[in-house]
């Protein structure tokens, strides 16, 4: 979208390390401020911990006896496990896109999966209410 961003983009800090993976992220642009990369990684790690919480909840709702209808248990289990699995990989994609944008000096990409996650959690709440 924006082509000539190198001059106003991130500053170069140290030599470029071409052996880093993935190449489509680290092979572009200039090295951003390390603090931004660290913050980006911490956001990813927080996303992964959120995925773990979703997966744990999905398993717990299935193996623990809870006072809701059995169909509700099954639906919630599927919802939470699917959400946890997809969100973990989605978090990594978000990290890669954000890192790439920082290297190229572009605005950070949007995170539409955040809205999906919010809606899905609301659906889980509705499912619990319906199964009570």
């Amino acid at each position, binding site marked *: 979208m924006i082509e000539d961003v190198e001059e106003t983009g991130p500053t170069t*800090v*140290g030599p470029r*390390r071409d052996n*880093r*993976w*993935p190449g489509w*992220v*680290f092979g572009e642009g200039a090295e951003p*401020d*390390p*603090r931004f*990369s*660290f*913050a980006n*990684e*911490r956001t*990813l*790690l*927080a996303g*992964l*911990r959120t*995925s*773990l919480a979703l*997966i*744990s909840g*999905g*398993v717990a709702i*299935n*193996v623990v006896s809870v006072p809701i209808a059995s169909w509700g248990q099954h639906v919630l*289990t*599927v919802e939470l*496990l*699917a959400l*946890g*699995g*997809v969100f*973990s*990989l989605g*978090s*990594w994609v978000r*990290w*890669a896109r954000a*890192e790439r944008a920082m290297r190229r000096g572009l605005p950070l990409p949007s995170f539409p999966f955040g809205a999906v996650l919010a809606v899905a959690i609301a659906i889980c709440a509705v499912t619990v209410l319906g199964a009570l």
Partner: protein
Amino acid sequence: MTASPDTGLARERTLLARRRTALSVGLVYVALLRVLLGRAGNWPAVGAGLVALPLLYAAVSAGPRLRTGLGTLILALAVGLLALTAGVLLAL
């Protein structure tokens, strides 16, 4: 890397977050697999293999360099696999 305190502190926070996440993944793996294996029979090989993934992440990310690409993908795949395994084991 610069010698700025800001950068050093950000780096330390990130390293701690890496270890915290690896620990969380490992603990959840052990806890969930223990619950699930009791239901679906004995899957020791699968369990051991899955537990090894977060350990691999911890090893990859333990170095001083920013090896975020590979390490974080391993961890993301480990979490995704956990969801898949849990779903399969619950369905059995």
